[in-house]
């Protein structure tokens, strides 16, 4: 029988997830990730998401560095970075981030530097928001695990 605290935490998590889905921050692919998590791979989602954070931050840094280059903006390289970021965002269900990448890529293909700068701002903002929300989600999950006092993941009776 679940403790009252655990129920409330689960409700919190569901509420947060529902909000993120509703806002389009996350899409169905995130659910697919969750479904791949089980006893043999209990931390799968957080592992993948952490890799995503590392990779994304590296790519965002590179993108900014490319755009700061006033002399010769390497749009091809920018396109490569964007494809990577788009792919990984798509793979974890980071829907809005991926959509901004698409817009960014369009600007990059037109060699539109001002447009690129604008979308980079939006991209960085979206990424930050996503990161903070996912951290929140993992925190709730963590509390649930600690509260359960049993091995991860929790088992319901």
């Amino acid at each position, binding site marked *: 029988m679940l403790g009252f605290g655990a129920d409330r935490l689960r409700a919190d998590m*569901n509420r947060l*997830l*529902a909000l993120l889905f509703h806002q389009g921050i996350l899409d169905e*692919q995130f659910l697919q990730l969750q*479904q791949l*998590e089980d006893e043999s791979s209990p931390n799968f989602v957080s592992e993948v998401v952490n890799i*995503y954070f590392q990779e994304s931050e590296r790519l965002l840094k590179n993108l900014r560095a490319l755009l700061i280059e006033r002399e010769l903006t390497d749009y091809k390289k920018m396109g490569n970075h964007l494809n990577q970021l788009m792919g*990984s965002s*798509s793979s974890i269900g980071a829907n809005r981030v991926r959509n901004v990448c698409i817009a960014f890529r369009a600007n990059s293909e037109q060699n539109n530097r001002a447009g690129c700068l604008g979308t980079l701002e939006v991209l960085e903002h979206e990424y930050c928001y996503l990161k903070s929300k996912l951290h929140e989600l993992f925190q709730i999950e963590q509390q649930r695990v600690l509260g359960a006092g049993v091995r991860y*993941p929790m088992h319901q009776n």
Partner: protein
Amino acid sequence: MWILVGLCFQYKAIISSHLHLLLLLHPPFFISLRPLSEKSPSSSPSLCMGSSVAAMGMVSDSKFHVLAVDDSVIDRKLIERLLKTSSYQVTTVDSGSKALEFLGYDSGNNSIPSLASNHHHHHQEVDVNLVITDYCMPEMTGYDLLKKIKGSKALRNIPVVIMSSENVPARINRCLEEGAEEFFLKPVRLSDVNRLRPHMLKTKLKTSEEQPDSASQPQAPEQQQHEQHEQHEQHEQERLRSIPLQVVPTSLQDQDRLLSVPLLPTLPQEQEQLQILPPTPPQQSNNNKRKAMEDGLSPDRTRPRYNGITTMV
């Protein structure tokens, strides 16, 4: 016979609880089939086998070994997890050249028995039953890798599957013509991975019968496509008939689409046409991809993503 599906939106409850969800049945569709391995990691996905495979009696103990090739760390992790969940043995590499190395590909002399060849039983250190590779990779693309494998006497019987995040019909066509068994759009899902087993079984059968080379020659691409089309349909139908109704949670997207389906039995003509489509409309199988390609349409799955924009690379 109508059963309603409820949306399961509970984190972890999906895996660990006994949900009493009902399935919405729109004959002959089953929605969102998932392998039983969710509950017990060691069990194999028997859902995708169907009666034909069970009759073969081949599945038993040996695990199929899949080689996954992708330059993206995240995608490698994802595909590895998907394959392991389906009880396959997995090796991941990050480039085409590493893949060829692993397969024992010898560029100098194609007829040297490779480590990974199914035909050469005396070199069984590495036995790869399927290669699944990303299309867009630096240096060697998935297409290049496919060509090398199919061009190698030792390796060409290994089924190859291509994955790509871009829906480019010309690209899909090219890969299938070159001998790829399937073309998956990313992100790859469990339903896609469930389609792999028939290809591996088919190859195993071929090897065990020790047919001469001429029998396993790749047929004309069109004929092969049609055959595969038929095979897929056959597999789908057998699968549908043999699957017990499983409690399966579905997604928001899925549910929206389900609700929009009219709750009336379809007319025979429509039904026939519908049977060509995969059992899970929201989740694209390659039947749909190929069919879409032939029709010049883009598969549903990519529409919400790109809003009608398809890019050429």
